[in-house]
């Protein structure tokens, strides 16, 4: 809708950009952004404006403010991965997905905050501090939260965004931008999307280029898309997907961008409900919501069947082995020699390497490197890495079997709970939290399948809860069509934020309408 507004001249790209930037400033306390690229954004907006005046916009995304997770390379703009290792690192090139957005005329507002090197499920373990969930400051949450004492203020009560793409999720959720890029390795886009009440799409592995995405697990990472509605996600997907010669793991097939039909008849759909996703720790609230959603489909005429993905329970340990192994390998390049932080220790190359890496990485990263190297040792390789690869094959085959039996799309919860307060979250360490929080999202990364979080309802605490749809390989159109239908049914409420309200009401209408397509 905002795109239409731009086209019709009801608002200009520059105005839009300025409003978003002003909102970024007034929501600084969320800590969603690490770097705000004001100058370049305004320049891009100006260029876009000229195109609109000529009547030649590049496309739907022309002039649309977007944000990008800080593990994507952006030329000329600091790329830190929220780590001391890359503080001050100015990338000399754009990630392919960033380039594609810019080529479409999108306006890059800045780089969003994350867990260091995307390791975590809270966006709390980065060098620039934790990201706060905008819903912590929403009327909906504040009304429901009961202060424990008079002296307590909202400062200590704020809830996490989930992670690791928490900054991107918060940025979209708080209206500072219309779309954001995240990354998804174990759920890092869908998890914060669920907690922040936005749409989070994990595309099929191999559909979107990873060139320029600083890798966590090369065999599972995908760029993720965060937007306020499913249609927007489809538009962004359309501009990003396709073969990239610079990424040998992207498929060669031609990709055709698509518009999502407005599904009215779901009777031909078969929805699968995997029973293993009724995981221990799943809140009764979410269980009920999941059930309600299944009924929604049933009542509309779709076939809803219980299915089994028997190896789901092994995915977390399997992930732990494969992820740490790849991390140990991927992080080996950070030695301070060519780029990034370099320690002052200069007694020898080895000591410089060791000091640089100790100083540059937080303990989460260091822990995973140590574990990963352990699993890759000659004497352990067979028992850990190879075994985990075999288990991965089993997990992937579970899905193959289920989809082959006629299931179109799987419906599952995205998270076990709604967002927890930060103070509570940090009581457990990163590894424990990740193991708990990734359980419903991780398997889709193992199998390379597309999956999407759609905000479904508010919890009793007034916080967003989402549900997840998992689709067949490269069948994003079908997946998003079903997601869009569901979105229409649930009519998830708009966040009521003070800061957003303060903006000029008339212009705000465009943003409040939650979509740009």
């Amino acid at each position, binding site marked *: 809708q905002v795109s239409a507004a731009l086209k019709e001249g009801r608002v200009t790209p520059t105005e839009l950009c300025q409003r978003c930037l002003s909102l970024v400033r007034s929501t600084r306390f969320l800590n969603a952004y690490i770097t705000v690229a004001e100058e370049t954004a305004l320049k891009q907006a100006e260029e876009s404006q000229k195109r609109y005046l000529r009547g030649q916009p590049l496309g739907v995304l022309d002039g649309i403010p977007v944000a990008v997770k800080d593990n*994507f*390379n952006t030329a000329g703009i600091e*790329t830190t*991965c929220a780590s001391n290792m*890359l503080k001050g690192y100015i*990338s*000399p*090139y754009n*990630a392919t997905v960033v380039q594609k957005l810019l080529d479409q005329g999108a306006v890059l507002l800045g780089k969003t905050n994350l867990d260091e090197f995307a390791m975590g499920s809270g966006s709390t373990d980065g060098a620039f501090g934790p990201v706060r969930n905008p819903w912590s400051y929403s009327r909906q949450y504040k009304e429901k939260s009961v202060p424990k004492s008079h002296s307590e203020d909202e400062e200590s009560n704020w809830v996490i965004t989930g992670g690791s793409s928490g900054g991107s999720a918060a940025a979209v959720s708080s209206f500072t931008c219309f779309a954001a890029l995240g990354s998804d390795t174990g759920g890092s886009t869908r998890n914060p999307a669920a907690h922040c009440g936005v749409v989070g799409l994990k595309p099929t592995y191999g559909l979107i280029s*990873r*060139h*320029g*995405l*600083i*890798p966590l*697990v*090369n*065999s599972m990472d995908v760029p993720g898309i965060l937007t306020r509605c499913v249609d927007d996600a489809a538009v962004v997907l359309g501009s990003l997907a396709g073969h990239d*010669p*610079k*990424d*040998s*793991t992207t498929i060669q097939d031609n990709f055709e961008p698509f518009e999502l039909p407005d599904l009215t008849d779901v009777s031909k759909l078969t929805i699968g409900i995997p029973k293993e996703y009724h995981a221990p720790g799943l809140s009764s609230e979410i269980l009920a919501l999941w059930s309600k959603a299944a009924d929604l489909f049933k009542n509309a005429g779709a076939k809803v069947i219980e299915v089994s993905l028997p190896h789901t329970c092994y995915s977390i340990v399997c992930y732990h082995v494969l992820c740490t*192994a*790849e991390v*140990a*390998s991927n*992080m*080996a*390049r*950070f*030695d301070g*020699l*060519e*780029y990034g932080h370099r320690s002052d220790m*200069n007694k020898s*190359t*080895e000591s410089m*390497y060791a000091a640089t890496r100790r100083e540059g990485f937080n303990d989460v990263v260091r822990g995973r490197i140590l574990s990963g*190297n352990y699993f*890759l*040792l*000659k004497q352990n*390789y067979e028992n850990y*890495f190879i075994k985990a690869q075999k288990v991965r094959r089993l997990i992937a085959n579970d899905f193959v079997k289920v989809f082959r039996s006629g299931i179109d799309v799987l419906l599952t919860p995205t998270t076990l709970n709604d967002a927890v307060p930060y103070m509570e979250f940090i009581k457990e360490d990163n590894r424990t939290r990740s193991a708990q929080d990734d359980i419903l999202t991780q398997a889709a990364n193992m199998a390379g399948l597309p999956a999407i979080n759609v905000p479904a309802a508010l919890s009793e605490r007034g916080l967003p809860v989402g549900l997840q749809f998992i689709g067949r390989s490269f069948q994003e159109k079908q997946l998003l069509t079903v997601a869009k239908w569901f979105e229409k049914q649930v009519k998830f409420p708009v966040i009521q934020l003070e800061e957003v309200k303060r903006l000029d009401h008339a212009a705000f209408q465009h943003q409040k309408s939650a979509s740009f397509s």
Partner: protein
Amino acid sequence: AAKGCGGVWRRAWRRGAGGPSPALCGQRAVACNAGGGAVPAGKSGLAPWVPVVGLEIHAQISSNTKLFSGSQVKFAAPPNSLVSFFDASLPGTLPVLNRRCVEAAVMTGLALNCSINKKSLFDRKHYFYADLPAGYQITQQRVPIAVNGSLSYSFCIDNKMSQIVTKTVRIKQIQLEQDSGKSLHDDTRSQTLVDLNRAGVGLMEVVMEPDMCCGEEAAAAVRELQLILQTLGSSQAVMAEGQLRVDANVSVHHPGEPYGVRTEVKNINSIRFLAKAVDYEVQRQIEELESGGTVLNETRAFDSKLGCTVPMRDKEGKQDYRFMPEPNLPPLILYDAKSLPANMNHQQVVNIDWIHERLPDLPSVKRAKLVEWYGILPEHSFTLLNEDGLAEFFENVVKQTQMKPKKVIGWILNDLLSYLKQHSLTVKESPISSFLLADFLNLLEKKEISSTAAKQVLAELWKGGGKTPLEIVKEKKLELIQDQKELEQICQTVIDGHKSE
């Protein structure tokens, strides 16, 4: 020390205070049985030794760009001027396989009679070093591109061109891998300088099974491999420019007993040094074992000045390289005529059969043809091919002269080649072109000059200057006089001139 093959490995030096005497280092004390089998006990009554030599050869692939990135491959460019983002391991960069490198490896595999694996895989080999920016090298550890080949090589016994021995060494495998950068240690300033120009250049690692037994064999095998690579064009294989690097694995054992502990010898910069290094190491190990010591499984460097191997400081203990599949590169799939899918774009695939059909004549074939067409001896064909450009030169001369090739070859090998060698010239730099030489030989053939005069003419030709042989002959009045009457007249003049005596 017994030279040439057919002798027996013995200690051929006085036992000194330390290891083998320095005098030994300069000599080739090589002696190994041509059959490579068990050798009877020597005069000294000591049990004989069987040396076992295997080789790991890294050949830089001759290509415009590197194995996984688009930066150029060039020798001696300004430091760090040929480095792409990927080569510098900038975060977020990904490898993209270079097709030309794959073709080079397939060509080489076919030329070495290997089975080409239609599916091969890439792996990461991890270790930390300043010249390895990513902290790992991309190589092919699990399934390399080619396996189970063989290489026939020949060498002359007793250096005498008369007896050629041909042997075969098995090729275990050929794998594609990245070259590392170069690091230079500046001890005075306590710093290390790193040049990444070479980082990421494509290499073919050729692993030769331990079927060789001495320096001469190793040298001959590498020489033949070098010729093959140069003929194929898959590598320029110039050792001096680091395009061909050889590491030798050496061990000794008594016949009938299990193989001994092996050492790895590195830092060998020429084929000549390879022979020396291997022979030295064999002797060193024999000495060590006979004096009650043990051979350590270590890496040693060849010191060309001293002619010895010394332990390398860098390698402490065994490295665990933590091999892991390279997740950013799908399996490498090659096709042949049978397996090629119908709708596949020809540009997108590597077709083994297509490459096979276009292989040039290998050195062994070339030599056989030279022998067959020109009637020269087999050992001559070796010499012709061993010298860059000499075979062409020979053939050009043959084309332009009436002299029979069997005679031409003598002039080529004895006169031309020895002159070039004496003056450290390559065939390309020869002051006498094939045209001039052919001209000269024609004069001889037509009996227009005597063989004595010919030597003078040749000496004059070597000076360069562009004079044709005929011009030189006329200048120096070296013509052979065939006319009987003229000869009688000259003799008469001489006799008359001496009448007085």
